[in-house]
């Protein structure tokens, strides 16, 4: 198991390295953003570019880039107007709290609901309850998140005025008004997560409930309730738990659209900014970040399968 985990991690680091190299070269190949003349930061940035080896071959540049990261945790400085001259890594860290909080609230809110709905639908399989829940899941998964965001903003924020239209400014992340102003964004994110968990749980539990060991459990004399709670849930969790771990890793990444609509000063918004302002150092950091999140979530899911269920230790025999 440990060997498998190490193997996977090594493979992941390799993949991350290749992707970083590819993106780095592709970004450095782009023409540089012109710097405003006469600005006090301009000579600083020009000197920096020289130090980063902009005139040298790409592989040398990549070497300097990696050396700076590993020795000084230096990802470069912002080159565009809004955050001119700021340290990219520090800026990135300062944008973290709102994204993490919103996603965390959303997950804490939606996982129990999703699993409960899924269990409910599976137990009442092929009744109107199941059909209703499955149809709603279908709708929630298909409809893009900006449509929910719009409906929530229109109904709760504009018509009823229960919540503010956009997120409150300031850095008092744990105050009550801040929490209230986050609710619309949290809700918009929750729909998709709830639907996803409901679907997974329902599919898994339906399969477990029809398997033969359930029949055996009943034959042994367990009531349906006992059999479900003791045997079916455990087996169903083999699939659901890794999904939960995966989504906890995913909370870091945020959503570009939701953050834009509700003016959340988070990672997604920063990413969008770096794209529109063509701030390459910022873009590079965020690209590496998003790639890493995706890869880590993937292996966490895979490895946790192995930890939870000894039957699925893929590749461990190698």
């Amino acid at each position, binding site marked *: 198991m440990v060997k498998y985990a190490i193997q996977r991690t090594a493979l992941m680091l390799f993949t991350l390295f290749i992707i970083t190299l590819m993106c780095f070269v592709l970004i450095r190949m782009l023409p540089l953003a012109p710097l405003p003349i006469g600005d006090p930061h301009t000579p600083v940035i020009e000197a920096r570019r020289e130090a980063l080896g902009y005139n040298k071959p790409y592989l040398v540049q990549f070497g300097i880039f990696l050396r700076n990261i590993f020795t000084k945790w230096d990802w470069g400085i912002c080159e565009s107007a809004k955050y001119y001259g700021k340290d990219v890594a520090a800026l990135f860290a300062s944008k973290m709290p709102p994204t993490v909080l919103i996603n965390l609230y959303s997950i804490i809110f939606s996982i129990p609901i999703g699993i409960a709905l899924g269990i409910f639908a599976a137990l009442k399989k092929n009744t109107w309850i199941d059909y209703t829940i499955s149809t709603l899941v279908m709708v929630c998964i*298909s409809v893009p998140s900006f449509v929910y965001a719009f409906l929530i903003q229109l109904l709760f924020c504009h018509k009823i005025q229960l919540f503010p239209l956009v997120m409150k400014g300031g850095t008092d992340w744990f105050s009550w008004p801040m929490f209230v102003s986050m609710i619309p964004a949290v809700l918009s994110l929750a729909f998709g997560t709830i639907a996803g968990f409901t*679907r997974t749980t329902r599919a898994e539990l339906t399969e477990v409930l029809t398997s033969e060991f359930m029949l055996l459990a009943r034959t042994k004399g367990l009531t349906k309730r006992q059999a479900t709670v003791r045997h079916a849930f455990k087996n169903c969790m083999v699939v659901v738990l890794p999904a939960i771990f995966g989504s906890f890793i995913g909370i870091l990444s945020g959503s570009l659209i939701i953050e834009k609509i509700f003016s959340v000063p988070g990672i997604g918004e920063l990413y969008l900014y770096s*794209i529109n302002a063509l701030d390459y150092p910022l873009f590079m950091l965020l690209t590496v970040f998003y790639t890493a999140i995706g890869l880590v979530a993937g292996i966490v899911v895979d490895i946790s399968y192995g930890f939870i269920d000894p039957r699925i230790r893929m590749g461990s025999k190698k």
Partner: protein
Amino acid sequence: MENNYTHIPQEKFAFAQKDAVIHDTKFDTKARGYFADALIRFKKNKSSVAAAYIILFLVIFSIVSPIISPYSVYDKDNVFINHPPFNPTVAEWNIGILDGAVTRDSLNEVAIARLKAIGEETGLEVYLRNIGVDETEMLIRGKKTIRKTYKVEVNKYYEQGIIEKTISYEEFEKIQAWQNESGVQVIFPAIDLDKVYPDATAEDLRYVSLDPNIWYQCSDTKNTPVYDADGNFIPAYVTDASKAGAEYNSIRIKGDDGSYVYSIGKSGSVSVRICYYNYYRYLKNGEQPNYFFGTDQYGRDLFCAIGVGARFSLVFAVLVSAINLTIGAVYGSIQGYYGGMIDMILDRISDILSGVPFTVVAILFKLHLAEKVGVVASFLFAFVMTGWIGMAALTRKQFYRFKGQEYILAAKTLGASDKRLMFKHIFPNSLGTIITSCVLVIPGVINSETSLTYLGIINLSELFGTSIGELMSLGQETMKDAPHAMLFPALFISLLLISFNLFGNGLRDAFNPSTRGVDD
């Protein structure tokens, strides 16, 4: 009896049934193929059939709507901005839809009278219906008074009423000629301020903001109307012929004895009161505004714009899924058939590609290629770059499932080449699964495409006029004034995606009955 089966002489062999009559009856029914079977199963699934019809309807809508709409996606009206759905014919039936209604609240009686007066003068019923009265008690100079305010629905297209416009003599003549021809009145008599406010002093008038829609006598400068004995407005038009800027020989309003003056002279041109709605008809050769889905913040017809955006989304999604199907099928076939080292190397490559977030791919392709090969092509490359991986994995799985089966061994023994084995014997077996996932890829592509255009990362409006994502992001901005501008594109895209998913699920169940009811 002696049975010696080891050395049977050759002449003892005879054909058992060379000329014999076979008594088995031939099958009367036609053999049912794999696809026909799937079709029958598909038809039993009511919701998927309904979804298929909805998709068909939406596709037809996107083809037809830009054709039947009187506007093109480049027509931008600068007055009818963010206007709600309106159709002149339906509006006349007065059934509460397509009547251009918007809600206006906290209007007092004077404002209501003004709205009704616009209706009376121009014949365009601005005031639609009253939907609520608010009563507030307040103290005014120590006296308790009840102030009533009304919440009403008004026709936003007519609400503009009359505007003052300075036009040239030629234009004035042209409008008159058009009026005579069509019988629609654009120019209305000029108003005489002294008659509107007979009691006001020159000092009062200095603070009056002139409203060309106040054509009746008022008792004060707050525009409280004065009614005559029958409860009608008292007109306050100019009757002094010497003020006329140009001759007027066209239709006159009801109650005009020929003395009303329709234009005020201004150096080289005339100042006239124009009913904007009818002026619009004059500009459009008599066509009335006709916006089934209303207009967006650029004054574009949403009915047409949604069709234009949807055309692109649909064609693009089908194209992407077809290309991904081809690449993925070939890649997956090679992986699955050869296995071993080749499989592992190809798997690493697709692993690395699938690790790059899609947004990053889209942006890098846009930055690098958009100028060289165009926005759409670079966008297409971005989708193809990572999109085929899922399809390849699927094909690979199917190949692993089938390649060890006996019929493949038999074909191999008969000397079939690798290519023949792959594409003649194994691939057709996985076709059902692949087609299904191809259909399920379409909503995914539409979703990502809409998200990227919504965020403005990809801008297609220069090429195609608009895109659904752009329409929605514009609608989001004007959510408070014009929720319809977001609602209609959102409704369209939601319906499309839901139907595609339902349709795809139905197809999957039909092709692969064992997975019925399992959702992933």
